[in-house]
């Protein structure tokens, strides 16, 4: 179903990075205030909040919300691993579109640097990692399994993955809130020469561990138009969320995310809801925790036929200035991937691009954007946005 009548009122990000001296509540507060200021609102305007994070403790979200004020608003925790931020946005958009709320906040924060040992996998869930049968398969190893199979099937080379990583490092250098800021143009050769983590993936093909927070405020279209005359309206128009579908040969124990085809099925559902397809989209942000994922998603999201992803890389079509720029803010590889807030930082970039306020990263004439994430467990979400005057 298409999301009708909802628009982005404001967004804000605390630049992803390492904040050993700052609490998650403080990071959340600053992202929340940035989004409220962008929207021209205070918490008194917000009818409902959806709070996301991956860290293992409970109740942290509702406590963090108190840093923004105590207005009695309903607060719901959302957790879908790496997809958390976009799923919080999905709930906020539907809270508004359903008529339940006039203004809804999606806010997320995490400190990967606090999550000892278990890291992204959330080590607290089943013992201490060392006692888990499947803890030997790290995310890097899992996505390397995809990469090796693709090289076998398609003749893809590590240089293709390196070119994607270099592109995202260089995109990040143009984004003020990107964690990684290079002082030189990163080349594929430099990426290939970095330490091998899991063959063929190198350290520079992987996202960093970092901390951060992000917030997006959704409101009724009428309210946003009335409060923000003259500003281009950015609307969430579709949000598909799917979990794994069984097919023969399904791997139950160990995979970080399920079959790659989950992305294709989720994208088709989102395009069906929105009434437009990949050919109508001007920029895309995807789950590039490892560079080879992005190559797979070019095809699975429908931006090129199966087996044609390498050509897009070779011809630079997914870099800024190309026909379909991917991860214009640097993606998970450069902008960063603290977990919960990742998806809301994506939406922040979509808002800048569709408002025409992305500066040197601006995709000329951008009207429609896609934000995709997968989350361990596993789930996939594809979200579509549209600008209108």
């Amino acid at each position: 179903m298409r999301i009708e009548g909802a628009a982005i009122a404001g967004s804000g990000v605390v630049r992803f990075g390492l904040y050993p001296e700052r609490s998650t509540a403080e990071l959340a507060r600053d992202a929340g205030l940035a989004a409220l200021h962008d929207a021209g609102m205070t918490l008194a305007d917000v009818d409902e909040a959806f709070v996301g994070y991956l860290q293992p403790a409970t109740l942290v979200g509702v406590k963090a919300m108190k840093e923004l004020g105590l207005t009695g608003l309903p607060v719901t925790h959302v957790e879908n691993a790496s997809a958390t931020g976009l799923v919080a946005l999905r709930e906020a958009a539907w809270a508004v579109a359903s008529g339940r709320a006039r203004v809804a906040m999606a806010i997320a924060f995490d400190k990967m640097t606090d999550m000892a040992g278990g890291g992204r996998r959330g080590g607290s869930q089943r013992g201490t990692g060392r006692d888990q049968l499947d803890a030997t398969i790290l995310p890097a190893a899992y996505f390397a399994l995809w990469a090796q199979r693709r090289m076998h099937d398609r003749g893809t080379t590590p240089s293709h993955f390196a070119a994607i990583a270099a592109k995202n490092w260089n995109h990040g250098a143009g984004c003020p809130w990107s964690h990684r800021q290079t002082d030189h143009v990163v080349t594929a050769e430099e990426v290939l020469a970095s330490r091998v983590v899991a063959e063929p993936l190198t350290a520079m093909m992987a996202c960093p561990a970092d901390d951060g927070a992000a917030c997006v405020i959704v409101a009724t279209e009428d309210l946003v138009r009335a409060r923000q005359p003259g500003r281009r309206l950015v609307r969430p128009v579709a949000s598909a969320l799917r979990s794994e579908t069984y097919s023969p040969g399904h791997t139950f124990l160990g995979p970080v995310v399920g079959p790659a085809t989950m992305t294709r099925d989720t994208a088709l559902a989102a395009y069906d809801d929105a009434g437009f397809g990949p050919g109508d989209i001007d920029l895309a942000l995807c789950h590039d925790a490892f560079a080879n994922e992005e190559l797979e998603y070019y095809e699975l999201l429908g931006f090129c036929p199966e087996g044609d992803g390498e050509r897009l890389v070779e011809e630079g079509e997914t870099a800024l200035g190309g026909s379909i720029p991917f991860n214009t803010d640097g993606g998970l590889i450069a902008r960063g991937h603290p977990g919960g807030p990742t998806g809301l930082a994506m939406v922040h970039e979509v808002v800048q691009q569709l408002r025409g306020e992305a500066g040197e990263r601006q995709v000329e004439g951008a009207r429609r954007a896609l934000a995709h994430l997968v989350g361990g467990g596993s789930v996939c979400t594809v979200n579509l946005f549209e600008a209108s005057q």
Partner: protein
Amino acid sequence: MTGDTGVVRVPIEAGYFTIPEDPAETPRLLGSRCPACGEHFFPRRLVCARCLAEGCEDVLLGPRGRLWTWTYVHVPLFAKKDRSVDAYGVGQVDLPEGPRVQAILVGGPDDFRIGMELELDLEVLRTDDAGAEVVIFRFGPVGDPVEEPA
């Protein structure tokens, strides 16, 4: 369970693989078969993931399969929690019954190719406080003696 050395072997997690009394004997994976549609699963489950029938039956799977994909990881086993192994193979292995199983591989970085036949065995991870060997399943090239990677 004790081998002929008298050392007790215990699984890292119960319910996933057999530990034969005789250490020379090949272990098997503990799987399920749906009595309604015949689909096989690893690990064990009650409800069939294909036809949703309840009451899957216990079966033993493997011990051989074909390598679907693999990688060699240059990170300590269990990330930073076990520094005794600083690099190891990981693969997905297609069992003849159908399931694709993700596991540690036995061997060095040049020992694997997609499509090769592999066989299950057990690896000792550590000795627990009671003196028992904690073991995990892994796959290695068929016919090779069990050797640690160089």
